[in-house]
């Protein structure tokens, strides 16, 4: 059975097609989910893609959090559904309180797009189990509001519980606290990542194939998980 991975389209989503492509290349079947439809159509995992949901003029992810599909996703995520939020998806997960902290304007105040080295800090999540601990990967980063902030206690807790999933190496592109590029929830099924693994899945169009690991991890996780 091929896993079915939902990819949500909000009005203003941009990387939804790319996320669906990555899911396909990883060997799963992408299922397009619509923001206004609460049904999850029996998917085994969900990707919240990058872009500007609802324009994000107010605060990234603030409005998307109230989309009908999000209510279902929040419930399902609490029940263990693997959810990956990429860039805007990460912002939405924070706004929806599935992940702690917030993403704020890049410290240098510019949108920045570059190929970024990350270190995978934990392989104990549904989206990183295909990596080696400490593995360095090369993935595009592109955001204007990617600076991760949380209070010191939250940051300490994330570190202590091994919930920092990836860190920026070789230069922090947005000023994120403690160079955080990705975090996970306590259960390890929900991951938010600022860089774009879906843009590193094909030799022709990406700086590497390192992004595939995130998607194959989910498949591995699903096979291992009790049905």
């Amino acid at each position, binding site marked *: 059975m091929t896993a079915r991975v939902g990819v949500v389209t909000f009005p203003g989503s941009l990387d939804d097609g790319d996320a669906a492509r990555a899911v396909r290349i990883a060997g799963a079947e992408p299922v397009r989910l619509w923001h206004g439809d609460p049904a999850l159509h029996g998917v085994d995992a969900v990707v919240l893609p990058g872009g500007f949901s609802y*324009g994000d003029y107010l605060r990234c992810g603030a*409005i998307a959090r109230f989309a009908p599909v999000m209510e279902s996703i929040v419930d399902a995520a609490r029940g263990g559904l693997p959810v990956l939020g990429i860039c805007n998806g990460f912002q939405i997960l924070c706004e929806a309180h599935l992940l702690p902290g917030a993403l704020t304007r890049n410290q240098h105040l510019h949108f920045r797009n570059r190929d970024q080295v990350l270190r995978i800090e934990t392989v104990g999540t549904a989206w990183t189990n295909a990596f080696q601990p400490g593995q360095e990967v090369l993935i595009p980063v592109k955001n204007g509001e990617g600076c991760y902030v949380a209070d010191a206690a939250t940051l300490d807790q994330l570190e202590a519980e091994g919930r920092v999933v990836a860190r920026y190496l070789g230069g922090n592109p947005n000023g994120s606290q403690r160079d955080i590029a990705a975090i996970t929830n306590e259960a390890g099924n929900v991951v938010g990542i600022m860089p774009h693994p879906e843009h590193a899945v094909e030799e022709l169009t990406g700086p590497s194939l390192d992004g595939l690991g995130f998607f194959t991890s989910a498949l591995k996780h699903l096979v291992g998980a009790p049905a």
Partner: protein
Amino acid sequence: MPRVVVDVMLKPEILDPQGQAVANALPRLGVSDVASVRIGRRIEIEFTGEPDLDRAREIADKLLANPVIEDFTVRLVEADETAGTRS
């Protein structure tokens, strides 16, 4: 110490996509009695000495507001209206 607050808003006839996006989202929160939302910037300036309204006005004009599309007002506020206090 009182601060100077500069409120910068888009001129009324200029399209405000931010405010519009928020207004459009409200019905989903069950709010239906809002006629319009406009979003601007609020800037709090703290001076080292006495707050200086004229100086603040000059800063607003040169740096904080874009006179082509925005208007601003400058005023003194006591500490209790400023941020950090939550109503």
